[in-house]
């Protein structure tokens, strides 16, 4: 028995770390008296897992959690109940009860696409249309990835960028690969743009927003709450 829920971590709580978010959910679930299941062992904790960690400083609008249950509860009920026990800025948007989780992939294994919004500044803001067009026209874009205790590595990120478009308010959105099958960090998108236009300034984590996480299906990206994802085990 499982509840899978979509949630948002708002701008006001962007400085809370991934582990602190986990802990906030655990306490909220306890306050709400929801039937979460506990791990076995010396230090029983609620069996809760979250989608890929959001970096400190970044808000997210389409994050996910899985909570194991001891008894069934419907999605709408879970959402309403938990929301009244969470601090402002952390909100369940949608929830679905899954009676049998046999064969279900974990969220982090399942979610392989992320959409980021970048608040464009400087030259990027000025030339955003042209730069995006150029970026998507390239076959290969090499960025350098620093690795802890290992030499830097060159890395072609172009195949991991699937879509780029200009939004209003000087924002640009990108759909990129995320997770173990290839991960693009939003600051690497800016690095890629800098290879095309050196005057594009560095952007910091607070210029990014993760608007959603998705599962890739053919040429579409879909939510992990859909029947299509849940039925395919």
């Amino acid at each position, binding site marked *: 028995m499982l509840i899978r829920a979509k949630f948002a971590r708002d701008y006001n709580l962007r*400085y809370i770390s991934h582990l602190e978010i986990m*802990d906030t959910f*655990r306490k909220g679930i306890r306050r709400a008296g929801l039937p979460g299941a506990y791990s076995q062992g*010396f*230090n029983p904790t609620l069996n809760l897992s979250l989608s890929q960690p959001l970096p400190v400083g970044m808000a997210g609008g389409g994050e996910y959690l899985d909570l194991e249950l001891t008894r069934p509860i419907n999605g709408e009920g879970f959402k309403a109940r938990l929301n009244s026990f*969470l601090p402002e*800025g952390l909100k369940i948007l949608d929830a679905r009860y899954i009676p049998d989780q046999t064969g279900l992939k974990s969220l982090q294994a399942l979610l392989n696409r992320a959409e980021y919004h970048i608040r464009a500044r400087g030259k990027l803001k000025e030339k955003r249309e042209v730069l995006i067009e150029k970026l998507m026209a390239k076959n290969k874009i090499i960025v350098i990835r620093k690795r802890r205790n290992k030499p830097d590595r060159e890395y072609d990120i172009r195949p991991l960028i699937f879509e780029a478009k200009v939004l209003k308010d000087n924002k640009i959105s990108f759909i990129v690969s995320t997770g173990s099958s290839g991960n693009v960090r939003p600051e690497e998108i800016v690095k890629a743009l800098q290879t095309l236009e050196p005057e594009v300034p560095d952007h910091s984590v607070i210029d990014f927003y993760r608007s959603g996480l998705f599962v890739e299906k053919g040429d579409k990206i879909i939510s992990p709450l859909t029947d299509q994802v849940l039925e395919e085990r």
Partner: protein
Amino acid sequence: MFFLAEVFSQIDDYLIEVDSPERYIGQEWNQIVKDWDSTDFKICVGFPDTYEIGMSHLGLKIIYHMLNEENEFLCERVFAPWTDMEDLLKEKDIGLFSLENKRELMDFDLLGFTLQYEMSYTTILNMLDLGKIPVYSSERGKEDPFVMAGGSTVFNPEPITPFIDFFYIGEAEENLLNVVKSLKKWQEQNLNRDDILFKLAQLSGVYVPSLYETQFDGQEFSGIRPLKDSIKPEIKRQRVNNLNNAYCPTDYIVPYMEIVHNRAVIEVSRGCQRGCRFCAAGMTYRPTRERSVEKIIELADKTLASTGYDELALASLSTVDHTKIKELLDQLTERYNSSNISISLPSLRVDEFSVEMAKNVQEIRRSGLTFAPEAGTDKLRERINKGIKEEDLYKSVKAAFSYGWHRIKLYFMLGLPGETEEDLLGIANMAKNVLDIGQEIRRNTDRRMKKVEVQVNVTTFIPKPFTPFQWVKMASMEEIRDKINFLQKNLRKKGINFDWNDPEVSRLEGLVARGDRRMSEVIYHVWQQGSRLEGWNEHIYPERWFEALDKYNIEIESIIGEKSPDQPLPWDHLIAGVNKEFLKEEYRKSFLSEETPDCRWNYCSDCGVCYKPYSELCLESNQVIDNVN
């Protein structure tokens, strides 16, 4: 979208550059944010250390909720910013702000500091300055908030008197609300600052230091007296008589970040009368008052439900001394067993019963247990009235090892009056014997048991105000260092770890703890040199203190040297409860290694605290009291 106060919106984006930005954002579950403009009287409570330290402090939580219960007030929080945040505030010219409405400290009507640790006083000055409030009371005007302070080190307020408009002496639940309401009323009547301070000085438990003057005979303090006849010569500590009826919140704020004590806390009793002669808390928080088992359970239920914590700590100076501790723990474990809530006992006595109790609540994950024998021999322990015998410790650790604990921490003090080499050898022997006991149990057990570890921690004894040792000379740094070296040589053994607190820092603590008004210049000077956050090793520069003492021509011995029991002391104008005759008698008895038992199970020691028969003070089982005065 939530409301961003102007000061915060200017700084919000830059918080990504500072360490642990969660310290500055507030917005935790159970935080109370009232409407700024429609609330008449605005209070901010400050803790002169970082968020994770301050949010672990129970007193601050009680005051925050107690004041916010009143519709006419709003009460917000502020903690000391870490150095990176301080730099950022200065760079952006933003005043230190509260966590709730994000207002600069200068915008409040009243700012109250919690005093917990002598080395936090420079941080108070720094927070005032960062909050755009004049550091000296004498420089504050109509537009500035009143600055008050209270807490466990308030029993010698003298070193910070020029910076604090008024002190509240004692327990907040008793009279603080009345004090704050009076202040609000007088402010609304548009009385000027001096008139308000004069009126405040008439209230019970309030000390307005600017209305008193101190006298000196050369370097020696010779007295303190009010400047006017209409000002009370003595200020009496406020205390709660019945803990069951005292205000106690249950909707505590739940921090995001990992704070020092991150759990639900219920104060099961207040005060301790075991009468250890070095212990300031044991003297100034008398008498022992207990919450009833029913009340504790009611508070625990509500607190756990409202916070979502899965750990419950039973706090007090000596939790297992609660007269119904066994019944309480039985009921709590039964109640919370199925809801995955663990119970912790933060303070353990050195006896088998305590270990038994700890075993009962800690069914699993037994790793480390801490005991504080304080001194190395029975004789010295008798002298300090720490009524435990070496055998008690061995019985306790034997029980602990056989229940599965494998790490024992032992706390001792160095520099106690009358300490000899024999006492130091005693510390080493106890540590070795504990290790032997553990290793033997490990050899003979068929259970899996981790390697036995004994951790020995020593700190320098500081003779504190309102203890029977308040007249004792504090041991010199050289003396303590020699003793540490001696112990280091004698504790070299696999399985024993030895650690100590810096004796230089203890010396400074002693100077501030026992200091008179002259110390305020030293504190100001040290702060001016850039010191703050001195509870953190990386931020303390002892040489600044010694330079300042030199500069202001203050002889160290005039503060922490030996005093005669007939000599005036800088805190003589405060009435903490225990009377001076009792302290003198205890001091005298210490030379004879004569013990004074806890009056709850024995005869009355005539400490002067009970103005009511003891049985009327809430104790869970009154029948154990045979002798009340």
